């Protein structure tokens, strides 16, 4: 039965996406502009037989999420700004101990208490590098209310498949925006938490490979589970912090189990990029303004293309690479100062001019701002 379209808020779509993905555990702490996710799930989780915990802080929230996931239940938390900072240590634990879980960060202006009710994209680097030590991270960036739903489902699937924390990086604008959408649950592909296909006695000696990542057995199952944040031997499971080979094996594996599957994980939307002379690289709420600016420029006869990362991390190097081959200029509008523009510049490696357009006043980047910059860059090109 097709669902009727209804007016849905971004945060609400995240909450429904989590339920649809099979998440049955939420732990969180109230913080603007993510609070609606906790409020909605405090009602929805018990309704579907799941659990909701309001913890004493964001550190505890992330800890409870890891504990629930280890017990075999798909789990998530949602937070913003300062709360995301507090969660970083345990996000690292989840990466190290390979615990699937989803963290939703509805970005607001910072640093510190900053602009609690205003949108920002200031956490894009923190989402990748916020926890200490070498690690990999999968980060998805919704640009629409529908994507708040679908990417939350995808985040759970990726976290189960690769046994890793996955971050949904929303922002105050996408989170609080309402759009008419149908949240279709019947055709979703859902990852299931299976048991390793081996005898419990053999489990410690069976090792995951890059192409065959074993599911994590649950606490309370017939397997003996040993989770730790210390360096452990990937083959025996034993804690071993003294052997450089063991540490290197684990460290490289934790990176490669994501990067080896980069092609399957990284998704982008490319609009009008085939013939573009000017490229736009924009993500999240800013991509909406970029799309409008692109259309306006095309009406004026300027060949502008939009590259919109849906997966922000791993960075879509391949797509930027393709764009850099034929555009003259890439404009990177973002609600921070050059955080992704640097990354784009590194991937472009001098083949095109990279122009950044940053904003940190809590206001949205408007289509007019981007159009103005396109016009200026066109003038530069024509003047050559």
């Amino acid at each position, binding site marked *: 039965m097709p669902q009727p379209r209804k007016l849905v808020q971004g945060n609400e779509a995240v909450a429904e996406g989590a339920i649809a993905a099979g998440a049955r555990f939420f732990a969180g702490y109230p913080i603007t502009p993510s609070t609606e996710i906790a409020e909605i799930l405090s009602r929805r989780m018990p309704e579907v*037989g799941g659990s909701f915990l309001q*913890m004493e802080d964001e550190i*505890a929230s992330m800890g409870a999420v*890891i504990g629930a996931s280890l017990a*075999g239940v798909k789990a998530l938390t949602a937070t913003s700004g300062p709360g995301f900072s507090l969660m970083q240590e345990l996000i690292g634990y989840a990466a190290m101990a390979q615990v699937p879980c989803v963290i939703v960060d509805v970005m607001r202006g910072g640093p510190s208490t900053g602009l609690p009710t205003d949108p920002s994209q200031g956490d894009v680097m923190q989402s990748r590098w916020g926890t200490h030590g070498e690690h990999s991270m999968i980060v998805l960036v919704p640009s629409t209310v529908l994507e708040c739903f679908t990417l939350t489902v995808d985040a759970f699937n990726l976290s189960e498949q690769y046994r890793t924390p996955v971050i949904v990086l929303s922002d105050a604008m996408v989170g609080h925006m309402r759009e008419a959408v149908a949240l279709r649950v019947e055709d979703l592909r859902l990852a299931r938490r299976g048991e390793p296909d081996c005898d419990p006695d053999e489990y410690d000696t069976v090792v995951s490979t890059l192409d065959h990542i074993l599911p994590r057995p649950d606490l*309370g199952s017939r397997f003996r589970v040993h989770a*730790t944040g210390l360096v452990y031997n990937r083959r025996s499971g034993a804690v071993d912090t003294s052997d450089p080979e063991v540490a290197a094996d684990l460290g490289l594996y934790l990176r490669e189990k994501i990067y080896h599957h980069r092609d399957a994980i990284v998704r982008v939307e490319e609009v009008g990029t085939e013939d573009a002379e000017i490229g736009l690289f924009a993500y999240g709420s800013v991509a909406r303004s970029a799309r409008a600016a692109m259309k306006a420029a095309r009406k004026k006869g300027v060949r502008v293309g939009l590259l919109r990362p849906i997966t922000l991390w791993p960075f879509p190097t391949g797509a930027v690479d393709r764009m850099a081959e034929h555009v003259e200029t890439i404009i990177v509008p973002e609600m921070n100062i050059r955080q992704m523009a640097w990354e784009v510049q590194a991937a472009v490696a001098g083949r095109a001019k990279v122009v950044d357009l940053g904003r940190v006043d809590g206001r949205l980047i408007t289509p007019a701002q981007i159009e103005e910059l396109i016009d200026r860059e066109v003038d530069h090109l024509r003047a050559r």
Partner: protein
Amino acid sequence: MLGLELDPDKVAVFAGIGCSGRISNYLNYSTVHCAHGRALPFATGAKVADPELKIIVVMGDGDCAAIGGNHLIHAARRNVDLTAVVFNNSIYGMTGGQKSPSTHVGDRSTTSPFGNSEPAFDLCELARAAGATYVARGTSWAYRQLVQLIAGGLVHEGFSFIEAMAICNTYYGRFNLTADSAEFLRLQKEHAVAVDKFDVDGPRLRDLYPVGVIHHVERPAYSDVFSDMRQKAGGRGGG
């Protein structure tokens, strides 16, 4: 021996970081070696997600009362059905002998070279005040009693808290009492007073402390309360 009849498949041990955390390597149960101070939130999430788990949380005094102090009082307040055991050796041993919230006024450590200027927590009183429904204290000296106290916590439904007075002769003892572990154990015998004989107005903690079951009441455990609420909400039972 204790008649606990634990199903080994259903036991999960959560440990913090510190000397106490080493326990996760010694037990033939499923174990989770958590981050420093965070064992109780991990365990809370696991228990709520799967109420069938029998959860034991092992922490050190710095782990539990300093960096994890907020989690301790909230886990006690919620009355999460788990057994928390704190190995209290009055010092940060693994990092080499720094003072902890259980180090007494005047005690020396590598970060209180002129004597500690802060008073110590009475962890049992803290847990009781926060809402723990089973609170007990024992010593390494009287280890048979300690085993019984922990067993009592495992049988209890709700948040049980057992303070195990441990000895760190390497640091705390050497700096303050004695570097001789046997002598340190004998001092525990002198310091420990049965709870029913303990003078509550007399000297506390450093010189004398009550041992035994200090507090025991019945109150619905968190998982049961949540389960009832879930049924009212129309959801299916279970995790």
